[in-house]
């Protein structure tokens, strides 16, 4: 019976990792920087949103509702409505931001949210200036 000496001994080199620094990102304490272009939650500049509902039209998931905002908004807004996104539908494909004529709707790199109630997933995009 031939003994595969290399096959027995070479895996033992793995033990060397014991003395290396772990690669773990200890998440709640240390946060990895998410790149700027990441497709996370929506932001919407109400100062420039024109309420055209292009985003609603292009969304294949019917995730976008047009509702009246309770904040100050663009006086030139044609319908007085701004998009509100259902995060029970959204797939973060970014088509809505591609078709936004004034480029007011954008995706931000903030993307982490967990909740205990399924009713809590309607998202009103924040203004860009509210996000540091």
């Amino acid at each position, binding site marked *: 019976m031939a003994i595969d000496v290399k096959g027995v001994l070479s895996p033992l080199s793995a033990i060397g990792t014991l003395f290396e620094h772990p690669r773990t990102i200890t998440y709640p304490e240390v946060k990895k920087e998410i790149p700027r272009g990441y497709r996370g939650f929506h932001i919407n500049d109400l100062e420039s949103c024109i*309420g055209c509902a292009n985003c609603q039209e292009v969304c294949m998931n019917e995730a976008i*509702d047009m509702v009246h905002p309770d904040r100050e908004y663009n006086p030139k807004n*044609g*319908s*007085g*409505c701004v998009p509100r996104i259902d995060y*029970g539908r959204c797939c973060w494909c970014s088509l809505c931001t591609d078709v936004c004529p004034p480029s007011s709707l954008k995706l931000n790199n903030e993307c982490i949210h967990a909740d205990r109630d*399924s009713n809590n997933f309607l998202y009103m995009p924040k203004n860009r200036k509210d996000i540091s």
Partner: protein
Amino acid sequence: MIDLSSKLEKLSLELVEKNAHLYKVTVKLENLESILLSFLNEFGYITLDSINCRDDLEEGLFTITYCLQTEKRDHVVMVQTSIDRENATLPSMHTLWPQAEIMEREMHEMFGVDFPTHPSLIDFALEYWEHMPPMRRDFDTLEFVNSMNPFRDQRGDNLDVKVEMKKRREEKKAAKLKAEQEAAAKLAAQEQQNPDSEAQNNE
């Protein structure tokens, strides 16, 4: 490919070149089995890559496409045929290519195409499916979903933007009109006042 083209011409079939790696030949249903057999045995197309089915509802047809490849696998020949949409029946090809068994099983489930000589027409992906085969185009999936599942009910405040735009335009128009009227009234009031003041001045 000229080779295959001339061979097919003998069978009075035309080979259409789609691009450098894709060719298509359309056959009649009654010749399908013999032509596929000669593709396998004579022309050397030993691999069946896939069987595709397309529902042409308007024409009342299913268009079936067999995608064949040679040993070299450097091009695909699509052998296309049409069958009637009602009572759709096809001969099973699992004797020529064993993998056809599973593809035909899927087609049977998704389109309701029948394969009389197929050995195992059992469930593929669906379980206890009692409705119309789902990939048929007259199966309305949204209607089916609405009859089965409730969606969340909080989104009732969605507004129709066209209506809102109209409303807002009218509001604006009304506001403008009102403003004009007010301005006119103001003007009129001023004019009314002015004579008084003039009169007062005069006094």
